[in-house]
C-alpha cells in the first residue's frame, strides 16, 4: 500500500493534496470540512491588509458544453477580521494537528510582516505561504503580483520573513513575468524553505456583447482578473519545469498549482518535480469530494508502477524535458488510420488539407475512410488530435531507431542549413500542391440546397 504522506520542507501532511489559498479556505468551517473529506492540507485564504470586496467576483470561459475550462476572479484577500480567522485557525490546528494548515499572508511593511507571522504561529499554523501573486486589486496597492514581478522587492520581503518566522516558509510566485526563474532565484537567495506556483494569470475572460463590459461585470465595468483552472495547467507545468531544471532552484521543494483536478494532473505535476499540489478551481466547481478520486487514482498509479512514496517518482519526467535543439531530427513517425475504428467524419482529412501538410486522401469508393499519403506525412500529430475516436489514428515510428542527430550536433559539426534556399533545410523537396490546385479541386457545395 503506497504511503501518500509527505514532508514538504518540514511541513508534514498525510497526503500531497492541499487546498490552495482561495475562497475554499476562507473559513475554519470550510477547512475542517475539507480535512474531513480527505484533503491533507489547506493554505488559508490570504490574511493581511484589510480589504473590501466587490459584488460579482468570478467569471469563466466555457468550451462548448464544458463549464469552466478556465476561471477568473477579481476577489481580493480575506476581507474577514483577522481575529476571526486566527481563532478559527487555532480551532482547526488543534482538531487536526497532523494536517498541513498553512497561513497565506500578504502585508506591506516589515513591521506588519513580523506582527502577522507571530500571530499565525500562535494560531498553530504549520507553515506560511507568501502571496506575491494576486494580479488584481492588491497589486495596485503595491502588494501581490507587484512583488512577484519585482525580484528585488521579493527578495527583500522574503529575507524579512525568514528572519521573523520559526515555521517553514513557502514563497508563492506570480506567473505574470517573462522569466519565472528570476523571482525563483530571488526567493532561493533569500533562503525561502519552499516555493509554490503558479498564482493566477492576468486576464480578461470575456466581454459582454450587449454592455461591452469585461466579465465579471461590476456595475457596467470590469477589470482584469486572475485566470486559473484547467486552461492554465500547461502554463503552470512549464513554469514548474523551468524552476526544477534550474541549478540554483531545483533542490527547493515546490508545491504545484494550476488546473489540477484529478489524479492524472497530480501525477504529471509530481513527475515534473512538485512534491505537494494545491487545488482551488476544481474544489470550487465540484466541492471537496473530488479528492477521493485523486487519492484513489494516485494510489493505483503508484501501486502499478511499484512506488512506495511520491518521492520515488517525483521529477522523473524532468530528464526528458529537453531544449528543442537536443531533439532527435532522425526520429520519424507517420500517421496510421485504423479503418475498423474510423467513423468517416473526415475531420482528419480537412484538418490536414487546410491546416497541415496535405497528407490525407479521401477515398473514391464512398467509404469515407481516408488514407495517409505517407510521403507527404511529416508526423505532426494533427490528425490524431482531431480524430474523435479512441485509438483510431495512431502515430507509428518509421525509422529504425538507430540514427540520431540534433540541431546542436549539426551546429557543432557546422552542418546546419545557413542560406535562404539551403538544400539542407527540412522542407526542401517536400511535396506541396501547386497553389492553383486549391481552386481547381472539386469543391463540395456546402452552401445548402443542391437545387442552387
Amino acid at each position, binding site marked *: 500500500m503506497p504511503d501518500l504522506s509527505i514532508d514538504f520542507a518540514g511541513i508534514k501532511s498525510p497526503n500531497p493534496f492541499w487546498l490552495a489559498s482561495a475562497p475554499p479556505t476562507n473559513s475554519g468551517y470550510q477547512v475542517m470540512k475539507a480535512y474531513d473529506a480527505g484533503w491533507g492540507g489547506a493554505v488559508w485564504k490570504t490574511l493581511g491588509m484589510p480589504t473590501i470586496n466587490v459584488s460579482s467576483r468570478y467569471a469563466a470561459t466555457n468550451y462548448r458544453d464544458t463549464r469552466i475550462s478556465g476561471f477568473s476572479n477579481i476577489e481580493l484577500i480575506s476581507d474577514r477580521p483577522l481575529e476571526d480567522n486566527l481563532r478559527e485557525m487555532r480551532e482547526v490546528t488543534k482538531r487536526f494537528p497532523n494536517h498541513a494548515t498553512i497561513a497565506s499572508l500578504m502585508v506591506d511593511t516589515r513591521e506588519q510582516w513580523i506582527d502577522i507571522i507571530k500571530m499565525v504561529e500562535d494560531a498553530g499554523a504549520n507553515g506560511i505561504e507568501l502571496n506575491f501573486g494576486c494580479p488584481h486589486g492588491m497589486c495596485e496597492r503595491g502588494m501581490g503580483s507587484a512583488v512577484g514581478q519585482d525580484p528585488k522587492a521579493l527578495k527583500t520581503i522574503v529575507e524579512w520573513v525568514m528572519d521573523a518566522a520559526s515555521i517553514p516558509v513557502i514563497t508563492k510566485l506570480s506567473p505574470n513575468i517573462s522569466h519565472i526563474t528570476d523571482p525563483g532565484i530571488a526567493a532561493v537567495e533569500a533562503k525561502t524553505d519552499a516555493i509554490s506556483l503558479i498564482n493566477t494569470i492576468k486576464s480578461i475572460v470575456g466581454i459582454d456583447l450587449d454592455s461591452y463590459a469585461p466579465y465579471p461585470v461590476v456595475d457596467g465595468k470590469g477589470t482584469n482578473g486572475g485566470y486559473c483552472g484547467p486552461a492554465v495547467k500547461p502554463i503552470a507545468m512549464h513554469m514548474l519545469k523551468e524552476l526544477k531544471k534550474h541549478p540554483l532552484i531545483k533542490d527547493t521543494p515546490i508545491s504545484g498549482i494550476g488546473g489540477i483536478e484529478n489524479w492524472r494532473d497530480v501525477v504529471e505535476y509530481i513527475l515534473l518535480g512538485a512534491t505537494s499540489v494545491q487545488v482551488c478551481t476544481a474544489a470550487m466547481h465540484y466541492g471537496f469530494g473530488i479528492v477521493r478520486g485523486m487519492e484513489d487514482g494516485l494510489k493505483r498509479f503508484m501501486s502499478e508502477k511499484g512506488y512506495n512514496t511520491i518521492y520515488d517518482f517525483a521529477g522523473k519526467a524532468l530528464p526528458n524535458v529537453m531544449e528543442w535543439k537536443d531533439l532527435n531530427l532522425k526520429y520519424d513517425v507517420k500517421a496510421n488510420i485504423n479503418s475498423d475504428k474510423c467513423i*468517416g*467524419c473526415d475531420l482528419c*482529412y480537412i484538418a490536414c488539407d487546410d491546416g497541415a501538410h496535405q497528407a490525407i486522401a479521401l477515398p473514391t469508393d464512398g467509404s469515407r475512410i481516408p488514407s495517409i499519403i505517407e510521403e507527404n506525412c511529416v508526423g505532426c500529430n494533427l490528425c490524431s488530435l482531431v480524430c474523435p475516436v479512441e485509438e483510431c489514428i495512431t502515430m507509428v515510428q518509421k525509422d529504425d531507431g538507430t540514427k540520431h542527430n540534433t540541431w546542436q550536433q549539426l551546429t557543432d559539426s557546422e552542418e546546419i542549413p545557413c542560406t535562404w534556399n539551403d538544400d539542407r533545410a527540412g522542407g526542401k523537396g517536400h511535396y506541396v500542391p501547386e497553389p492553383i490546385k486549391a481552386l481547381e479541386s472539386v469543391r463540395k457545395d*456546402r452552401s*445548402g440546397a443542391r*437545387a442552387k
Partner: protein
Amino acid sequence: MAEYNRPQSEAEFNENFKDKTPLMNDTQAHYESSRCLFCYDAPCMNACPTAIDIPLFIKKINTGNIDGAAQTIYDSNWIGNACGTVCPTGVLCEGACVYNKQSVPAVQIGKLQNFATRHVIDNNKKLFEAGKDNGKKIAIIGGGPAGISCACELRKMGYTADIFEAKDKPSGLTVYGIAPYKITNEEVLDEVKYLQEQLGFNIKYNSPISSKDQLEQIEKDYDAVFIGVGLGPTAFRNIPGEDKSGIIGAVEFVEDLRMNHHKTNVGKEVIILGGGNTAMDAASESARMGATKVILAYRGSKEKMGAYDFEYELAISSGIKSVFDANPKEFLGEDSVEGVKFSRADGSEFTINCDMVIKATGQAKMGSFFKLIDNMETDESSRIKVNKKNNQTSNPKYFAGGDAINGGAEVVNAAYDGKLAALGIHKWLNE
C-alpha cells in the same frame, strides 16, 4: 390490449396522441449541439434530400445564433420546421450521423432543427424578403409542401405566386395526412403563415382545378404552372364486399382524424390492410383512439413491408398485433363489415372478425387530371414525367413535384421538388 381508452374529449385526444419527444429546451439544445463533430462534407447533409448544411446550423445553435441557424435551414428547405418533425430522420440525416458507426447515439438533428425553426416562427423573426416584382405570374396547383416550397422560392425571385388549393387549409398531407402524434395542425399552419407573411404568396382556398376550361384560363393568365397535386383518394381494390360500410381508406381516415380529433368514428375491432408507413400510422392511430383490437394485416412477409422499422415498432408499441402472409379475399358481413377473409400463399384461408377495415393499400393516381393537359407525359404508374434537373414536364410551361411525380414519398422530397421547380421556372422564363 387497452393501452389507450377511447378519447372522449379534446384533452383526452391530445393525451393519447401527444408527441413522445417534445421540443428541446435551451439546455438540451446546447448540450446536443455541442456533440456535433462538424464532419467534413458531412454525411447527414448528404443524406438530406434538401441538402441542409446541418453542421453549420448546429454550430450556429451552439454559439447562440439561433436566427442564423433557422436561416441556414430555410435557405435549403422552405418546410424546415415540419420536416424537422415529420422527416424519417433515423433513415436520413440521423441515420447517416457518423456517431452510429461507434454505437454512440446520433446527434438529434431533427430536434435541433425544430429548436431553431420554432424559435423564429414563435418569435416571428423576419428572415426573408420577397424579391422586386418582376411582372411575371406563376400558378401553383396544389398547396401542399411542394407547392408552398415552390411559391416561397418564386416570391424570393420576384414572381407573383398564386396557389390554387382544393381544400380549406394549406400544406396538403402535412396537415391532412400525417399522424397527429407527429405534428399538430397548428404547428403546420403556423409555419405556412410565417412564410406567407414574409414572402406574400397567395393561396386561393377551396379552389380545385379539375377541368380543361380552368387549365386553359390558367395558361392564359400565368407565365408558367407548377403542379403539386399529390395523389388521389385511396384506390379501390376490387375485393368482394369492398363497398360495405365500415371499410374506409387510410388517407380518408387520417384526414378525418386530423380534422375531427376525438369525434372521429373508430371501430372496436379494426383491421388495417397494408404494410407501408401509412398502414403503420393508421394502426397506431386506431389504437390511440381506443380500439380494443387492432390487427395489421399484410399480404407479404414482415421483411417485405415498405414501412420503416421504426414506424412498425411505433405501431407495435401502441399495442397493435400484426398478421403476415394475409391476402384479403373477401369482406364479410351484411351491410356493414363484420370480418375479412384472408388467403395465405399456400392457398389456405382464415377469417378475422372486425367492425372496421382501414385500407392502407395505396392512393389512386391523378392520371385523368394529367390527361387534361396537352402533351403531359406520365409513366406507367400515372406519375408525371419530369426532367430531374429542373422538374419541367413534357409540356414546357408546366413543372411538377411531390407525390404527383414520385408516387408518394416524404414531405422533404416535396419541399426539394418545389424549390427545384421554382429555380427551373426562373431559368426557363429567362432563357
